[in-house]
């Protein structure tokens, strides 16, 4: 099924009128952006509708947009249908401070770890998640490092963790950064 008809079918099911949501069927990876409160309904429909049959959730990524109005974190879901061989990208925006989304774990189980990672690195909360813990970083790590304005802590449990002076200076001068955290 072509991207345009996938988007059309989804919008018709959700009752979204044309012009009330953003989408691009001509992009390199056709995408549709839907409000966070319709996310779960959209995901269920995309998975269960026999014409669409998006049986796998390929990837969940976060993108931080602090300069946008309003500042937001975009959560991007890449979906694949193995049976129909088509692809679509589902996007939704969530507030940077204390925003939350419904978990898609109940639709695709693989969302569990992806959402834990998005929480770990961006701080997005997922309502109803069965195991809402950090996954890659220590549980008491300060902040969420993939936020654009995240700053290195000087120390973590008295262990110096901030990158070396050399690396910071080079980064400030617009040069390449070092390879490791201690440069």
């Amino acid at each position, binding site marked *: 099924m072509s991207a345009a008809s996938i988007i059309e079918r989804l919008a018709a099911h959700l009752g979204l009128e044309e012009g009330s949501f953003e989408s691009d069927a001509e992009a390199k990876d056709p995408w549709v952006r839907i409000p966070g409160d319709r996310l779960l309904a959209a995901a269920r429909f995309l998975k269960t509708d026999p014409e669409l049959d998006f049986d796998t959730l*390929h990837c969940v990524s976060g*993108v931080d947009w602090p300069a946008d109005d309003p500042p937001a974190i975009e959560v991007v879901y890449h979906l694949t249908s193995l049976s129909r061989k088509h692809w679509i990208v589902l996007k939704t925006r969530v507030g940077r401070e204390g925003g939350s989304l419904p978990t898609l774990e109940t639709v695709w189980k693989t969302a569990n770890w992806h959402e834990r990672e998005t929480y770990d690195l961006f701080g997005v909360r997922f309502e109803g998640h069965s195991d809402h813990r950090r996954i890659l970083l220590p549980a008491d790590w300060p902040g969420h490092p993939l936020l654009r304005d995240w700053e290195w802590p000087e120390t973590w449990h008295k262990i110096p963790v901030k990158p070396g002076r050399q690396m910071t200076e080079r980064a400030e001068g617009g040069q390449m950064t070092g390879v490791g955290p201690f440069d």
Partner: protein
Amino acid sequence: MAEQRSPVDGAPLVTLYDEELPPDNSYAFSPEELEEDEMILNMGPQHPSTHGVLRVELKTDGEIVKDARPHIGYLHRNFEKHAENIDYQGVIPFTDRMDYVGSMGNSLAYALTVEKLLGIGVGERVAGIRVITAELQRIASHLLAMGTYGMDIGAFTPFLLCFQQRERVLDLFEWLCGARLLYNYNWVGGVSHDLPEGWTDKCRRFLDEFVPVLDEVDKLLSHNKIFIRRTADIGIITPAMAKDYALSGPNLRGSGIDWDLRRDDPYLGYENYDFNVVVADSPHGPVGSCWDRYFVRVREMYESVKIVRQALDRLPAEGDVHENVPRFVRPLAGEAYCRSEAPRGELAFYIVAENKKPIPYRVKGRSPCFVAMGLFHEITRGEMIADIIAIIGSLDIVLGEIDR
């Protein structure tokens, strides 16, 4: 006593260490919830069969595993944050270090994504070289998986034979680009070095000599009765579960699902090569067992040999491998997501670009091993402790890619 202070203030083994220890939040199961006869057992992070630094927390009752939770992140260095401070080409060495035994596949996936973002293609010779190196890398990676899997179960000889052959692939790569493990070979728009003179002949000779060895290892291990008894009935991933957890690569095909990106969404002209997609047919027990996943890898090596032979035959004699390498990578605002069939499954990169900036705004790596590890607790429930090792090995994980 003060002179005993270590330069790192607060190092726990120093006598004056008075810092309160961080709260122990590293356990998913609590001792209070345990039933009688149950106990919590840590496997790893230094266990040799966890293929890196993976820690698995097991809730056991005798030898039976009631539940398991993997703990990851020991190798986390967040290359995605690094990538936000470095130009597009500079990210390639970081991607090499994700799946460090399948580096060609990683840099290839990243290069394909940036090329998709820029809207450029590569010449026929570069595409051919990329196919050859990617398939050789698949052979090397599957040899490692096969050899170490045999050793996990207790068979030592196949390991030596596999590593001998893997070494020959690494020698070919060393001749090609100077590195044995982390190649930095696939560039945006091209590859770093053209094939040296005589390389194709040596590659052909390797393929000719490799196939009989593979036959021998296959005979030694795959249909060995003990090996089958150890692997053919455990760690069952049903096709529905495999889709639900978005498995990919040999793990997905080991569950009997006929899907391969090289055929179903071809890139680099894979549609022009004649090869079969290997799907498990499980002669020894239920579909989706550890043995099925293992055997898919073995048979995939034969298919890779076929592809490399065809690619060598039709490789154009002339062509500049740097022809399409852009002087500056400054894409227009936009985003691209590109999947590719890496040795361990579908490796994808998601790149968001700001308008004409030399530095990516966001790079995300979709790791097939990370995804496969997400269903680990499902397939280990009710198995024996010794089988956990067989299950970890059958998923063929690399922790560098899981933790990124």
